[in-house]
């Protein structure tokens, strides 16, 4: 049915929206990893983080004075989510819905 169709992009977007104000770690395609509180996300999966901390700060002091940031969705490699705030079963069902059987 047409109304059941949910492109994966908007599903993941919805999942991120439910995770606002949670702590996440974003690994970028330049190998930087940044931990912070997820403040907002948009349809491109651009991410805004508050109270950020760069992993291995001794090696990457470049962002010492940065407290919050905007990350372009296209440069994100991984996002580590807090598992206790993700309904894995729901996510599994939603991603399988509409897949060819």
């Amino acid at each position, binding site marked *: 049915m047409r109304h059941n169709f949910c492109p994966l992009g908007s599903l993941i977007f919805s999942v991120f929206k439910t995770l606002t104000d949670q702590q996440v770690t974003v690994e970028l395609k*330049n190998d930087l990893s940044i931990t912070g509180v997820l403040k907002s996300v948009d349809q491109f999966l651009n991410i805004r983080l508050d109270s950020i901390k760069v992993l291995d700060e001794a090696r990457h002091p470049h962002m010492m*004075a940065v407290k919050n940031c905007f*990350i372009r969705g296209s440069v994100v490699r991984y996002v580590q989510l807090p598992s206790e705030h993700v309904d894995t079963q729901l996510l599994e069902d939603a991603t399988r819905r509409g897949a060819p059987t």
Partner: protein
Amino acid sequence: MSSLQGYVDRRVLLILQDGRVIVGVMAGFDQKSNVVLSDSKERIYSIDEGVEEIPLGLYLVKGDMIVLIGELDDAVEQAVDLATIHAEPIPPIRY
């Protein structure tokens, strides 16, 4: 919507796809996250020498090139002497 609105007129730090770091005051932005910086400087990091700052003036950065935009905390900025910081440059983006 994850907008850049909150960064206008603030001192920001940009990290670009090729690993360059640029600081400046955000003068404006658009839907494609193209950004105009005023009074901008490039910060060049190296292991052997302290951070070198190259003045760039008014700069337009294409949204495609941007990896990250961070708001700078002026108190921390002023407490740090860039000349004493030795660090590897940020690596370029690898897909």
